[in-house]
């Protein structure tokens, strides 16, 4: 896996847009939380397909019907 990195844009109004790269699943959330804890309050967070990549945990609910022999 690539080393985690951030692409950060700080607008002239002070607002930040942070893109987290190179991290999946919980690690990605930790990195996003890190930036939030340093800077201030989070207005929005959007997870992308890379979040669910290898190493990310996805819960799958399955319902199986067992046929009964009669």
């Amino acid at each position, binding site marked *: 896996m690539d*080393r*985690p*990195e*951030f*692409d*950060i*844009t*700080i*607008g*002239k*109004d*002070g*607002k*930040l*847009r*942070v*893109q*987290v*790269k*190179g*991290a*999946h699943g919980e690690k*990605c*959330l930790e*990195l*996003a939380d*890190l*930036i*939030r804890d*340093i*800077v*201030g*309050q*989070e*207005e*929005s*967070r*959007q*997870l*992308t397909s*890379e*979040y669910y*990549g290898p190493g990310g945990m996805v819960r799958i609910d399955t319902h199986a019907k067992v046929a009964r022999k009669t």
Partner: protein
Amino acid sequence: MSAVCVLTPIVISQWPAIATAVASVAASMGFAVVASGTQDHTTHRAAGDNRVETQVPNSEVLEETMTRGEKIVIEKDGIRIEFGRDERGACSVCVSGESYSKSQLKKIGEEVAGRVVQQFAYHKLMTELKKRNYDIVQENVAEDDSIRVRVRLGG
């Protein structure tokens, strides 16, 4: 990318750090720092009501880190901007200028206040990420005056 976050900086800090951000903004926007500290600023006030007061958004100046009445004042093209601490602890921004309308002064004050937040957030973020072993890979100021930085966890 795995996540995209939009954040609003909270500027809670000691006065010297905020004054440093103001000085950086002054330099980048062509303002001159004309006063800093507890000098008497009353004689320099614009005549009449041609002044607008606002705040640096989401700010708090830690009281124990500044002397009562301490301010930093910047000037350019007949515009005077005083930064200090108001009664509620926020970083106050007072903009005055005889040749400007109130709406113009308000716009200038908001723009400068936004730039102060930008500088503060940039320095705080870079300081903290370096402590956590992140390296600055790329850095530039875009045409729209936004600061763009790429940082990567060090090897």
